[in-house]
């Protein structure tokens, strides 16, 4: 049978996770409780973290840290995080957003995990704590690549720099149902401009591979360019580099490949959907 343990500190939770292979961290519950309700998770321990640090937002300065237990609803209620509101609002309805956490979103299987796409375009780092001790920051892309085979460790927070101009950060979720549906795909783009040219471009996709991925071809096509029709055309041509989308109940692989360049072009051009 399943047991539940309440952990007053992150260190306590990390220690249990490291020592007990059957321990599962319960964030908002939107992933883990589904497995409980459908009988896939019947043995082991659910860990609840009550440490306030787990749900702390530090967003006053240029470096932002979100505790892994921070919910989408908390992000939407925070004015310092306005540039992330589009991504947070893309997750579920209001009830899901009051539960779904930043840390849990890192583990959501495709086509879920849209918030992580935004974090990827922000060059976020994941703070991972293995056993008692202090956390270690891992680049998000590296974390995602190793997600399925990573050893027992606890995600405690994510960190990233605030975009110097929030208007240069873009997020779009494409779904078939309005106003809310599961992703056909999602796109996040950070397009910092300097002297009319883009530098340090970051573009990320959701649902175009088993995990959220960086669109390196698009980043290369845009780097050092001004955001004009020619650059957008080049970006669209490079849009599919590295993509391995799945066919699922929402869309076929073919469809995802067909519509991605279209939506990328619209996002870059600032057009509506």
């Amino acid at each position, binding site marked *: *049978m*399943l047991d539940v343990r309440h952990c007053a500190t992150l260190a306590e939770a990390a220690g249990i996770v490291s020592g007990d292979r059957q321990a599962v961290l319960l964030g908002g519950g939107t992933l883990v409780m589904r497995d*409980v*309700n*459908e*009988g896939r998770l*019947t*043995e082991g321990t659910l860990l609840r973290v009550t440490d306030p640090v787990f749900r702390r937002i530090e967003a006053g300065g240029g470096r932002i840290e979100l505790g892994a237990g921070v919910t989408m609803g908390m992000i939407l209620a925070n004015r310092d995080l306005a540039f992330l509101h589009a991504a947070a609002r893309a997750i579920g309805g209001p009830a899901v957003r009051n539960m779904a956490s930043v840390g849990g979103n890192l583990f959501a299987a495709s086509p879920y995990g849209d918030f992580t796409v935004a974090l990827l375009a922000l060059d976020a780092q994941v703070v991972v704590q293995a056993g008692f001790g202090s956390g270690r920051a891992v680049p998000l892309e590296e974390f995602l690549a190793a997600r399925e085979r990573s050893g027992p460790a606890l995600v405690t927070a994510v960190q990233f720099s605030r975009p110097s101009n929030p208007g240069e950060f873009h997020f779009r979720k494409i779904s078939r149902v309005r106003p809310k549906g599961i992703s056909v795909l999602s796109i996040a783009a950070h397009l910092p401009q300097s002297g009319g040219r883009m530098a340090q471009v970051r573009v990320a996709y959701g649902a175009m591979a088993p995990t959220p991925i960086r669109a390196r071809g698009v980043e290369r096509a845009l780097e050092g360019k001004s955001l004009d029709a020619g650059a957008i055309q080049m970006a669209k041509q490079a849009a599919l580099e590295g993509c391995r989308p799945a066919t699922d109940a929402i869309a076929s692989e073919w469809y995802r490949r067909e519509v991605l360049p279209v939506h990328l072009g619209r996002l870059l051009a600032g057009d509506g959907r």
Partner: protein
Amino acid sequence: MLEMRKDLFADERDDNLNVIGKGLQRQDMPGHVTGLTRYFDDHAFEGLLHLKVVRSPHASARIRSIDVAAAARAPGVRRVLRAADVPVNRNTLLSLIGFGKDDEPSLAVDKVHYKGEPVVAIIADSEAQALAAKKLVRIDYEPMPAVFDVEEALKPGAPVVNETYSANYFEYHERFDHQKLRFGDVERALASADMVLEHRYQMSPIEHAPTETNGSIAAPEQNGRFVVHSCAQGLFFALGTAAKIVALESNRLHFIGGTVGGGFGGKVDSLTEPLAVLGAMVTGKPVRFVLDREEEMLYGSPRGAERIYIKDGLMRDGRLIARHIRSYFDAGAYTRLSSYAAIKCTAHLPGPYWIPNVASDVHVAYTNRCPSTAMRGFGITAVDFALEVQMDRLAEAAQMDPMEFRLLNAYRDGDMKPHRRKASNTALIECVQVAAEKANWPISEQGKRQSSLTGGGVGERGQIPATVLDARGQIGRPETRNSGPTQTLPAGSSRIAPSKQPVMEGARDGRAAPAQVPRYEAARPAAAPLSPPPYQPAPSPYQPVTGQQPPPYQPPPAPPATAAPVQTQHGAVRFSSVFGRRR
């Protein structure tokens, strides 16, 4: 918002009605908005047990062995049910009205025929305990070939899906492999048409996705009875089905329901009631069996997929002169209601249009997929989609506006349908006119003047044309469905002439004669000229077939020289594909 049109069919409507056209509060609304409405699961029982089923992970497999020992010993488990525990472990839903053979087990016996088929049921103190115990059931499967395509399934040598129907098609009246409709001479009309358009349409299965999943709670009542709170859309249908499967007199089951959290046709299959009742019988406790969402989506039966071929003969002026339809209804692994879907489909063809030559063959094919069932116009909605897409294509081919094209070909009151019934209350013309008006779609003045009340049944529109038959003098023999027509049913001949008893077909092909299978009127040796339908005097009284040889076939008398008007069919014995005949 609702609009009452008083200008259309004004003389067919009584305006002195107490309910229609007036706002009236629903009687169940106060319960809905206060949360007091009681659905099947909203009942408290002391000692409630929970039932979960172990399902097949294979689309087709032989069961080598089942080991439930560990599951039976698991914490909280009260009872594990297997096929042998089900008193009548083979049923088909329509057996309650004597239609079709029992083909589906409640728990699989030695084979599974679709992914998700129930094999073992576990009853435990809590849902969590039942779910944990499910993982301890060990079933050794030997996977077998499966077939997922309706046309592949009907080919010789295809894997047998359902042993009860080993040729992978539902047998109507234990002899016919499909539902057939013939009216006029489609082949000749296609040959004379200016254009022939043929297209293939493939529909997907569709899940009803009610917000309330299928489920029921059964509990012992006093005096050897059981009370059952059920989600069933057809409560007494579920009662009858459960009573048969658990082998109880139906008056020992007290079904309570009718308050359904969305059904749309997906709650007529008695998916949970029989095992819930059986669970209550063997444990003496209240037993709750509810599908979870994944089970509902994957294994609660969907609207069956259909493949539809439509071949139409079109004249340049837009008149549709011939329509041939070949359709395959995907029943999945078991019959449930697919046999009825094909009947409804055939009754609906060729759509709401008057076409002088119509032929259709609608097959029900078994595949190793989840059995399909009723869903909002099943058998009709899919073919309507195909027909209306086809109509748009035809309009384009005729270079006509699609609305005008429909106005031109629409049924009008009094038109003869291919089922030898007069069309009435057709109203398609008026629907098209109003739809065009609402959509600001321009239609011609002539189109606006059309009425479904005029022009119907005039001339050949009201008559039954000469209809071709096959070499056996029939239209529905499986072994001849590929051979050409050799005979022609005289004009005016009806499958069952008005006010006339059916001629019963006797035993053939060395098989026992089924009850009450009417056959066509005899073919005349030569093609008869188009003429008004002849009056047929009533033959000898109807003789039920009771195992002995029926009287030999007697050709009916020649039609009288003078024409008689078509008799009204009201009160006449009519053919019913389900019952053979009805009043």
